[in-house]
């Protein structure tokens, strides 16, 4: 839970409002093309799949390559979310490591 910082804010009410979800993940996003101080290639290590869910229902499915910046940042927007609804994020990287986070929708 500590590898994703998230917040979700609803402007207006659940019927007409929009929820803005912002998140930042802790991840090196190594391309596999960079060399370390000793001239050795740093192996590729990057998030490949990310799923965002609202109350357990998928709203955004993402595939990422090495072109997403280190410590990935994302904002996305939802219709139909209400206060205290749960937004969750799951990711898996090329080494099979996983991460997840969740947050409740608050008023903007």
């Amino acid at each position, binding site marked *: 839970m500590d590898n994703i910082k998230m917040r979700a804010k609803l402007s207006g009410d659940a019927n007409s409002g929009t929820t803005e979800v912002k998140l930042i993940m802790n991840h090196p996003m190594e391309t596999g093309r960079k060399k370390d101080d000793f001239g050795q290639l740093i192996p590729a290590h990057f998030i490949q799949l990310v799923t965002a869910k609202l109350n357990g229902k998928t709203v955004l499915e993402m595939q990422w*390559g090495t*072109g*997403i*910046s280190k410590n990935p*940042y*994302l*904002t996305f927007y939802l219709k139909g979310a209400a206060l205290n609804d749960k937004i969750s994020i799951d990711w898996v990287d090329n080494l099979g490591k996983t991460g997840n986070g969740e947050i409740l929708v608050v008023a903007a």
Partner: protein
Amino acid sequence: MQRRNFLKIASGVALALLMHPMRVLANLWNKPAFEAVKIIDAKTNLGLGQEMPSKDIDIVAPDRAENGAIVQIEITSRIPNTESISVLVENNPTSLIGHFVFSNGALPQLVTRIKMADTSDVKVIVKAGDAYFSAAKNVVVLENGCG
């Protein structure tokens, strides 16, 4: 009793084995698309058809980026029934940056930060039903961010 337990466990394992590949398939990472150097090859591997330029896709990105390691982009599609947004950078070592699929009330709009190796267009392709639309924004990159 033992036999019954064995059957229970065996059927549970069989079910788990059946379920596992389905979950994996549903979430498969498109390796050939992400390893493609050229946009045309990434597009083909993503299954994207011939796209038309559209004024209903907004791309907000800096005109000049000092450091190509972090270039913030904001993409908004006003095309009805937008299903997915793909982000591509022609002059990167591999052109496909990310592929975003929207459902269940997610708006076709996002902000993220990408790496750029060199001055290039940031190209966005939107899928809406059987139609494909695109827009591009040029970003001048002063320092290679793809290391």
